C-alpha cells in the first residue's frame, strides 16, 4: 500500500475544519493479513438459534402464565387460552431441554472453542485477562482488549452463568410441572428441589425472577455483539450464522492453544 500523499494547503485547511467534527471522520477499513477461522460448528449455531426461539417463546408464555394479561369471555367450554399457552410453554421447554442435552454432548464432542474447558476461565492468565477485559469495557484501557478467538474470560463467565441459570430454570420448571401428578416421574425426581426451596411458591418465584435474568441478558448480549462487530471489524455477528470470523494473522490469540 502506498504512503498517503502530502496534502495540499487548501486540503489541510478543509481537513482541519473537519477534524473538529471528529464524528464525521471516516474510519479506515481494517488492514492486514487476514484469515478466516472456523469457530462454531453447525450444531452449536443451530442450538443457538433454537435456544433463542425457545427462550423468547418461554418468556412470553411464561409471563402470560404468571400474569394472564388478556382474558376470554363467554362460556368457559369454548375457550382454552391458558391451556394452550401452558401447552406451548411445556412444548418449548421440551425442545430447550433436548437442545441442552445435545449441547452437553457437544461439550465433549465439539472443537476447542466449544468444549467444556472453553467455558471456564480457570487458567491464571484468564484471571489477568478478565481484569483487562473489564477495564476495556469500562473504557479505562479501551485500546487493550485481550485477544481471544473464541470467548474471552468475561464471556466465558457470563455464558457459563447463562447455562447455569437455564439449568435452574429447567429444574424449577419441572418441579412445578411434576406437581399435577404426585408420585409421577417428574414429581419424584424434583421433590428435592421443592424441599430445597422450602415449598413450591418459592420455586415459582425463582422461576419467575430468573425469567428477568434472560430478558436483561438480551440488551447486553446484543449490544456487545454489535459493538464487537462494529469496532473489531472481524465479522463477529456473522460467526453465529456462518460459523467463523476473519482475524488478523499477525495477532497472537490467547486461546489458540486451549484444548
Amino acid at each position: 500500500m502506498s504512503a498517503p500523499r502530502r496534502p495540499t494547503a487548501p486540503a489541510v485547511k478543509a481537513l482541519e475544519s473537519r477534524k473538529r467534527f471528529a464524528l464525521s471522520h471516516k474510519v479506515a477499513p481494517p488492514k492486514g493479513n487476514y484469515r478466516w477461522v472456523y469457530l462454531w460448528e453447525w450444531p452449536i449455531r443451530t442450538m443457538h438459534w433454537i435456544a433463542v426461539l425457545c427462550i423468547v417463546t418461554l418468556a412470553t408464555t411464561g409471563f402470560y402464565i404468571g400474569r394472564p394479561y388478556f382474558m376470554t369471555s363467554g362460556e368457559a367450554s369454548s375457550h382454552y387460552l391458558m391451556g394452550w399457552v401452558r401447552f406451548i410453554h411445556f412444548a418449548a421447554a421440551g425442545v430447550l431441554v433436548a437442545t441442552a442435552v445435545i449441547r452437553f454432548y457437544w461439550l465433549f464432542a465439539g472443537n476447542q472453542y466449544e468444549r467444556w474447558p472453553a467455558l471456564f476461565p480457570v487458567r491464571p492468565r484468564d484471571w489477568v485477562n478478565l481484569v483487562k477485559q473489564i477495564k476495556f469495557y469500562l473504557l479505562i484501557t479501551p485500546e487493550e482488549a485481550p485477544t481471544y478467538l473464541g470467548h474471552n474470560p468475561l464471556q466465558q463467565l457470563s455464558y457459563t452463568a447463562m447455562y447455569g441459570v437455564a439449568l435452574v430454570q429447567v429444574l424449577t420448571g419441572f418441579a412445578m410441572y411434576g406437581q399435577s401428578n404426585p408420585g409421577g416421574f417428574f414429581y419424584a425426581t424434583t421433590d428435592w428441589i421443592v424441599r430445597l426451596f422450602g415449598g413450591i411458591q418459592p420455586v415459582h418465584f425463582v422461576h419467575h425472577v430468573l425469567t428477568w435474568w434472560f430478558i436483561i441478558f438480551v440488551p447486553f448480549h446484543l449490544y456487545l455483539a454489535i459493538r464487537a462487530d462494529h469496532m473489531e471489524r472481524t465479522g463477529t455477528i456473522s460467526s453465529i450464522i456462518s460459523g467463523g470470523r476473519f482475524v488478523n494473522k499477525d495477532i497472537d490469540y490467547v486461546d489458540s492453544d486451549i484444548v
Partner: protein
Amino acid sequence: MLAPTSHPWAAGDSLGAYLTKRGVSRRDFLTFCGEMTAMLGLSSALTPKVAAALTAVKRPSVIWLQLQECTGCVESVLRTAEPTIGDLVLDVISLDYQHTLMAAAGHAVEKALADTIAANKGQYVLLVTGSVPTKDDGIYCTIAGRTARDILEEAAADAAAIIAIGACAHWGSVQAARPNPTGAVGVAEIIKNKPVVNVTGCPPIGDVVTATVVHFLTFGRVPDLDPDGRPMFAYGSRIHDQCPRRAHYDAGQYVEAFDDEGARKGWCLYHVGCKGPATFSPCPIFQWNTRTSWPIGAGHPCIGCTERGFWDTMAPFYGRLPDVGGFPVERTADTIGLGLAVGATAGVAAHAIATGIHQARARRKLPVVDIDKKEESGHGQD
C-alpha cells in the same frame, strides 16, 4: 354436638352396639361406611369389610392433647350443623382425655390422663392439636405446670398411633411463622421414633380426621402417607386439579377484583392470589360444615393452609408470588425486573455513546490523512 358424657360408650361394648343404642339405623351406618370407604380411596367392594370391622370394634382409648393452639381445629372437627355418625365416632374419641370438652376439671383431669396412659399402654390413639414451643425450655406453653413438650413426650411414648391434627401440630403454623418467637415446632419434630400422621390444614376438614381414625380402627394401621406424613387419600392431589373453577383457569377467565363481573360469574381466582395450584388438599371434594361450602366455593382464593410454612411461603394471600422482602417500599419482583431490564438497555445505550465519544477523541489524535483518497481494502494481502 351431643355431649360426650351423656351417652357413654361403655368399655367392652362394640361400636355397633353403641350406635344402635344411640338410635342409628343400620342403613345410615352403612351409608356412613360407604362414604368413608370412598373418602379413603378404597374400592366400594370393601364397604362391607369396613362396616364389619367398625361394628365389631371395641371402644378405643383416645387421648386428645391440645397444646399451643387456638382450638379452631377442635371446632372444625367437632362442630357440624347436625350430629353425624362421624361426630359420634369422634364423641367416642373425646372420651378419655380432651381438656376443653371434659366435664371434669383440675387434678381430676390430669389424673384421667395419667390413668389412661397407664391402663392402655401401647393401645391408645393419640390425637394432638397445637404446636410445641421449644425456646426457653418450652415455657411458652404449659398445662398444669408441665411444658407442652413434656406432656407430648410422655403421651407419645406408649401410643399405638399418633395423629397430628392441624397446621400447628404439623409444623407450627402461625406461631412458627417468621420470626417464630417461641421456637414452635410440629409434633413430628419432637416425636422422631414413631410415625406421625399429619392431618393438616388451618383448620383441617373434620371428615379427614374421622376417615383417618376409621382407617385405623378398621385396618389396625394408619393410611398411606405422603413424604410430609399426610394421608394420601386426602392430600394426594392439588386443589387446582380438582377445582370446580378449573375450566375458567384453562379458558383464560380470571377474577381481577372481588366485585367484578368475573367474580359474579364464578371465574378462576388465580389472579387474586389463589394458592390452589400450590396446595394439596381435598377441600373441593370434602368441603366444610357437612359439605356446605369451602373457601374457593365462596369466592375466596385458597391460602394454601395445608402446606408446611404457608404463612410465610404463601403470603401475600392476595398476590400470586411472594413479595421481595427487605425493601422499604413494597416492590414486586416484576417491578424490579422491569426496572433492571430498562436500566440494562439504558446502560448499554450510555455505554455506546461513551464508546462513540471515546473513539472520536482518539481519532482526533491521529495524524491527518487524506480521507477522500481511495484506499485499498484492508482485507487480503497487503
